[in-house]
């Protein structure tokens, strides 16, 4: 190794001193994510009727390589349906500790009901708080379980550490 090599390396370092830093001061600053980023799941509704898209077919659970999804279905009341079609998911749970955010569930879904969103702040304290049910994932719910708990305790809205972003598949979800 020659002196020239050292100088060349230090040159790269020095040149960065004069560039704009890439570090984001999270959580003071919001984070930008790519449109294809895979974060916390959303369960979507049909925008026109408000009915759930999920029909409880359990194909996401079958596709899941981490066995993180548990679905139990039930029959729709024809007078007051939950979803479009005969059956709906009466229980829909994802264990976020097991989930590897691969997105296979999204690919398997025949109705586009489950889509991986951009929220990523899922840290929490207890095991049971990582099992997300329908109430935690249906479109309209903002933030992780912990964020919502904190917001309720403090009496303010959930604030995500996520810069405004958009993904076309996330019908009805806006960050």
């Amino acid at each position: 190794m020659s002196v020239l090599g050292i100088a060349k390396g230090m040159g790269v370092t020095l040149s960065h001193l004069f560039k704009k830093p890439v570090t984001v001061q999270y959580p003071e600053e919001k984070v930008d994510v790519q449109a294809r980023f895979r974060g916390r799941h959303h369960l979507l509704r049909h925008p026109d009727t408000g009915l759930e898209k999920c029909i409880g077919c359990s194909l996401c659970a079958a596709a899941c390589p981490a066995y993180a999804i548990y679905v139990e279905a039930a029959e729709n009341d024809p007078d007051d349906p939950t979803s479009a079609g005969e059956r709906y998911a009466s229980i829909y749970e994802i264990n976020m500790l097991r989930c590897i955010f691969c997105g296979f569930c999204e690919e398997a879904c025949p109705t586009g009901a489950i889509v991986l969103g951009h929220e990523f702040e899922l840290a929490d304290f207890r095991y049971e708080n990582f099992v997300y049910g329908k109430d935690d994932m249906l479109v309209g719910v903002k933030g992780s379980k912990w964020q919502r708990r904190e917001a309720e305790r403090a009496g303010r809205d959930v604030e995500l550490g996520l810069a405004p972003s958009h993904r076309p598949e996330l019908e009805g979800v806006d960050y």
Partner: protein
Amino acid sequence: MKIHVNDVPLDVAPGTSVIDAVFAAGYDVPYFCSQEYMSPIGACRMCLARVGAPRKDRATGEWILDEATGDAKIFWFPNPMATCTTQVMEGMVVDTLSKEVKRAQNGMVEFTLVNHPLDCPTCDKGGACELQDRAYEYGTGESRFVFDKRHQEKHHALSEAITLDRERCIHCKRCVRYFEEVPGDEVLDFIERGGHTYIGTLEDGLPSPFSGNITDICPVGALLDSTSRFRGRNWEYHHTDTTSLDDPSGAALRIDARTGRIERIKAGLNDEVNKTWIDDGTRFGHEYADHADRITLPMVRKDGRLEPVAWSEAMRVVRDKLGGVDGTKVGVAIRADATLEEGVAAQALAAHLGTGRLDHAPRPAASVLPGGAPATLRDVATSDGLLVLGDPTHEAAIVDLRIKDALKGVPPADLLPHGVPIADLRLTERMPRKTEILTVVAPYRTDLMKHAGRTVTPPAGGEGALLRALLALAHARTEAQGASDPGKAADAALAGWDDAVGMSAADAAALLDALAAAEAPVLIWGGFVSADPDADAAARALATAVGAKTLILGPMANAAGLERIGVLPSHERYAYDPASSEVRAWILGDLDPAQDPTVAKRFADLDALIVHAAFENATTALADVVLPAVTGYEKEGSTLNAEGRLLPVRAAPVEAGAATDFTGVVKAYGEAAGERLEGRSVRSARRVLKKRLDVDLAELPDDGRLLPPAPAAARGARALPARRAATGSALVVPSLVRIEHLDRNPTLLREHGGPTLRMHPSDAHAHGLTRGEVVTVPVGGIPRRLVVAPDDGVPEGTWLVPTLPDQPVGLHPLDLDALRRERGETAEVA
């Protein structure tokens, strides 16, 4: 017959269908309409293949030779053939691989899919669907159909237990054929024609005790079991292949469970026993096992209340309680659907306590083990002379189906390399039935009588008199044959006949003639005969006299097995009698004798009452210690069915807390008492049974193993002392539906209606009872809540009540004066 399937040379029996030859050769053709044990009809046109055969010259009788090769020339059929309805011919050549065949099959898949909805994600059949699989294997993978599909009713409740989706139906006709060919109840048919065809029934629901089987054979998701509707997907279920403990026929079951619940029961395949059919009581009657009321922890009475405790503590209480009681004054009784292993455990427990008061209940007055020549279910299905005493449809439903097999006169097919023949060409639609070979004797009109050439209705409890009269006549006729004038002597034998036994002398003579002429006669009897030792003795003697094999239907699944291994009192004086004042402590497995208020009163001053039960009942309400029991679906063990076949019972994964079977009770008791009792586990019990029966029950194959009848000497040593027949005006009759579980089986309750009190309409009128009215009436001491169902098939003066484990089949006193109307309450009567 030598044939070629593609490149495989094959030697098959004449009469084999081409589809079976193809499968025997290891090739595959798709099919939807053919079904094992049913007639092939070629309805779906899916099993197409190119078929050809050599031809003989009419003039010379020689094979026509191919000039180029010198071999026999193959003449191909002009079009692809439906292989299920084509019979093999000498020298036949079958081609299932050519482009032409693939194109034909491909076209049929496309045609079948034209009107089939693409709702696989919401369909309960998805993942286990024949159409889905065949479309994947033989379809094009894409649709060219751009028009609207046929729209029909999506969830039509064909009955309370079966949902029909008419859009999904592909008109294979399996269900329609099934009802006519297997149970013989024609309740379903095609309505309309062409693309408008749909299946439907003119009756209210599906009035057949075997309707559920159509959900198993439906190749698509058109017919679905309502108990499991939307409960889970097929790949999520944990499958347990086991044996039904619902009745003594020993039908094979497949239990589908998910997250600790039984979601569905399907029929298993056992060619020797149930083939692929089970009855509705077995199929739909599982919901109780998942009921929220299950006892999941041992409970001990503290300050008058039952408190949940750990097993070890409960067993310390049991030990201390029993410690203060004279061992000979302790009674141990288990229900007659306990496994053989549980029987061994009960024996070990009784031996440890030093009591001879060991029994299984219900146990009829007479033995349920056949003596001389036991008949297997195959013998029943191949018999040409059947005398049935009782109601096998409700006592052991599979026996009913095997009797109907015998009426077809087609012996069971030999198994092929791929199993049961897919298309057995000996079977056809609407086969003539040889009803003349079947005689049914029962004190009321039973389901099987519709199929019998001769029916006999003796007075309730009159089977003994009838059998004795038949026996006497049989003996007299035998003697008459040796007399100088046989004709006159035979007439003399008939002269003393009394028609009051239920049949005329001419009928009796004709019946005996039919049995004598039969090559393989079989005598089948159930609870009505076993309830009366004299009738039982006469039935056995009659079987010997006419050279018939015998099949005895016990009161519950393993009654024969428990009797065989000797879960019996040391003396008849010590037989199970909950009202006995000699017993100071009871250990009861799954029994509820305290429904009878006099027994409840007796139980109040027992020194100890220990109950092993799955649900709280009148007896657990009085118990000192309640131990949680598993249901028949959760047991590991083995059972002996009516024909003497040892069958494996396996445990489905059901969430039931700390519940165990009776071996678990004995294990925990042994631990508390510091003893290692035999039968403390299924393994330990099996070691004992291996010595006694010379069979390793752990190695039992799925279709079981026939146990040779016990040697006569062994039977003599532990011969059952006869008990006296009961009398009364209520005839407790067998029930296909387990009445004790009916309240916790909502689907079955809707389908079947509540337990009924059946009487002749004139009796109902005389007592001012109306159809559907709910009444409570004491039957043999037990107050029974029943729905009034007048039925002209019931003789006047007899009142029919379905059986409970604590109220065995037979006559019981009925206190009509104490009949109480449940005001304003009515129920549907099926």
